[in-house]
């Protein structure tokens, strides 16, 4: 239960952030890292929040080498600001999360949120090449580097990616970036699952393919013009503008969950949603998002199906009571005890985001 308004800290350097983190941790205060605040509903209800540590003043592009296709940024930069910078060189970061705009890079790494382009490019887990993290003892720890291929030491990028700030506060990151495709076409169909399955099996695979509960399929084909043109002709769907993706990325219901399962299991689980449910999904990835309007019991039932298929259902936002009723994460992973020991090693007093993450 949050009893008083938290202190808000907005450090403007990584060193200041690390110092503020250390000082708050030394007093065993509950510390909540905040980026763009787009994923604040994710995970469990905070047990306590004494200090909000905002990264938004850490907003610089530190170094962008167009020829090396590598960018280093501070964690508080928004995705849009970074994309604008990269666009000047005809490049981009292939990340298009929901509840846009306004995500910060640090927030996206901590939350692990992704969007439709994951089908072609993978998640930041695949193109994050370096990370710098402030730890509760005030140390700044770097892993990885600014090269696109690197096995020098442990891959701690993976440790912090998706850890929801439970081990430290991400203050900077380096990415492999990508050239804007030569040709980029978006098509739409009302053909629901069958159309989606068909489009996923075309000779040129789509870079993004989204299906929603209205039966609409949006497919994006990128690459060399001749090959794309042939595929587009063969499909015969209606061409639509790129704005369809911006609109899609704005989706953020008040109460929603992410279903992530092996991709061949997704259709079965989505079809088990309560009748009339609003959802959208990436059938080629195995991820669906559900705008929940039904009761907690139905969420628990769908989660059981997702878990039986080897996947998960995670709450992205909901009223506190609802999250308490369904539980934020579901059945803990079998390696929970190992994860707890890692949490203990980085955050021995449990000051970071108490109650929010799995450990």
């Amino acid at each position, binding site marked *: 239960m949050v009893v008083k308004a938290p202190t808000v800290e907005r450090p403007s350097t990584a060193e200041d952030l690390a110092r503020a983190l250390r000082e708050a941790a030394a007093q065993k205060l509950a510390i909540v890292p905040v980026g763009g605040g787009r994923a604040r509903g994710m995970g469990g209800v905070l047990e306590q929040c004494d200090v909000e540590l905002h990264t938004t003043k850490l907003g610089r592009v530190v170094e962008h080498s167009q020829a090396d296709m590598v960018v280093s940024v501070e964690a508080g930069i928004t995705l849009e600001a970074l994309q604008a910078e990269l666009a000047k060189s005809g490049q981009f970061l292939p990340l298009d999360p929901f509840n846009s705009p306004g995500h910060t890079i640090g927030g996206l790494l901590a939350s692990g949120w992704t969007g439709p382009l994951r089908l072609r490019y993978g998640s930041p887990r695949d193109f994050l090449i370096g990370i710098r993290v402030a730890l509760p003892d005030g140390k700044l720890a770097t892993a990885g*580097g600014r090269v696109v291929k690197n096995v020098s030491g442990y*891959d701690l990028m993976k440790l912090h990616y998706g850890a929801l700030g439970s081990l430290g506060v991400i203050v900077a990151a*380096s990415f492999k970036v990508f050239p804007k495709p030569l040709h980029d076409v978006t098509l739409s169909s009302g053909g629901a699952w069958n159309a989606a399955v068909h489009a996923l099996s075309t000779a040129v695979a789509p870079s993004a393919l989204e299906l929603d509960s209205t039966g609409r399929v949006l497919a994006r084909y990128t690459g060399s013009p001749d090959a794309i043109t*042939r595929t587009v002709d063969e499909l015969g769907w209606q061409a639509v503008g790129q704005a369809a993706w911006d609109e899609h990325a704005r989706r953020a219901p008040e109460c929603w969950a992410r279903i992530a399962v092996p991709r061949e299991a997704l259709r079965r689980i989505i079809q088990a949603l309560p009748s009339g449910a609003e959802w959208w999904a990436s059938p080629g990835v195995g991820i669906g998002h559900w705008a929940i309007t039904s009761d907690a019991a139905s969420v628990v039932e769908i989660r059981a199906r997702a878990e039986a298929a080897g996947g998960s259902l995670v709450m992205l936002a909901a009223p506190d009571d609802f999250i308490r009723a369904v539980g934020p994460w579901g059945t803990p992973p079998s390696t929970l005890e190992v994860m707890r020991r890692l949490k203990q090693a980085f955050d021995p007093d449990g000051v970071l985001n108490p109650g929010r993450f*799995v450990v």
Partner: protein
Amino acid sequence: MLPSPVTEELRRIVGREAVIESANDLRIFERDGSIAGAIPDAVVLASTTDQVAAVIKVAAKNHIPVVPRGAGTGLSGGAVTIHGGIALQVTRMRCILEIDPVAQTALVEPGVVNQELSLVAAPHGLFYAPDPSSQKACTLGGNAAENSGGPHCLYYGVTTNHVLGMEVVLADGSVHWVSGDAPDRVGLDLCGVLVGSEGTLCAITKVKVRLLRIPPSVATMLAAFPSIETASQAVSAVIGNGIVPAALEMMDNVTVGAVEAHYHAGYPTDAGAVLLVEVDGTAESTRELMAAIGKILSDNHGYAMREAQTPAERELLWAGRKGAIGALGRIKPNYYLHDGVVPRTRLPRVLSAVGEIGEHYRLPVANVFHAGDGNLHPNILFDMRDHEVLHQVEAAGEEMLRAVVEMGGALSGEHGIGLEKNAFMPWIYSEDDLGAMLRVKDVLDPDGIMNPGKIFPDPSRKPVQLAGRTGLAVEAKWW
């Protein structure tokens, strides 16, 4: 030698013939593909996960080092038992347990040879993308432990991008599944941390990997260049134009000479350097991309460009590349190979530094490497029978790595740190950076029995100093 009660316990676990202790037999396990060696106290040939777990439990109880070992093709000393103990050989665990053509995944034991998986997956129209040059011999368990790369990782990514999950045995002998088929799994990404941990955190007993559809069309081109510099600029120009080929490999004049003498693949021996470029996709896209690449290469001093016309010709071009290091045996019997990686645009500078270092030490150097990734592979050629030369070779290797790091690069792109580069880790990481990695080590292996002496610098040794580094982020002391 292990205490005899320990040996007896190991024999009870794996069977009498699966514990090797005779001095002659142990010598076979002295080395991997690098130049340092050490004889293990015993080699244990495990056949099941239960055996691996039981062996590690015995080792833990007796504080004996355990070094998991696959085919021993590693190039950084990762499989060398530098502190003695048990070499835990997993090559008897060599079953492909499952290929799921619908989910496009494979579940394999750690001793399965890399190329075998692609051969078995091919009838399903699938392949396994990471392709180290040692793929005819190296194992998938070793690939996961080292986070191995290969020529086609430029487009497809390295091992970690293709591992979906693993069964691992931790230092206390406990068996765990980490990650799995579904995306965005709940909790910390232990699998991501364990891939590339070089046997220092766990032994790998099963690997679930992603398979990809075999592209319908592949085009492969060889182009000659007057010098390494012009070839490097051509590489930057291709990628700077927004084209990421499936593979983009460079060989210098020394390498081309050796390869051509051995393979007769039609490599131009007069060239200062050659590039091997491959694109894949549909027939239209490979044709379009190859035309665009051909133009960029010729605009950048490329000549004698030749596209493979048949699959056999393509195989021959690749045989030359993948067999290049073997062919270098024509020049000298031994090689010492580093795999530093730099931002791609710094390739010309770092390669000219490598050349100067070779000349300074009067050692022949042959470069054959993943140019598209900025991942160099200078092979210092020598004859181990000349005892004086080894020290020179190591000194030259260290200077080459120094040049890499000074240009904002990293110590290893795909071979691992092992025991040959651990002393240099402070060049790229601060005490706090290494401290964070050590926290992970201490959590997963508190007694330090898993592959000791690797990755982290030996605290008892004097640190090796480095002059300076370039790059804004590096100057800011992040990278």
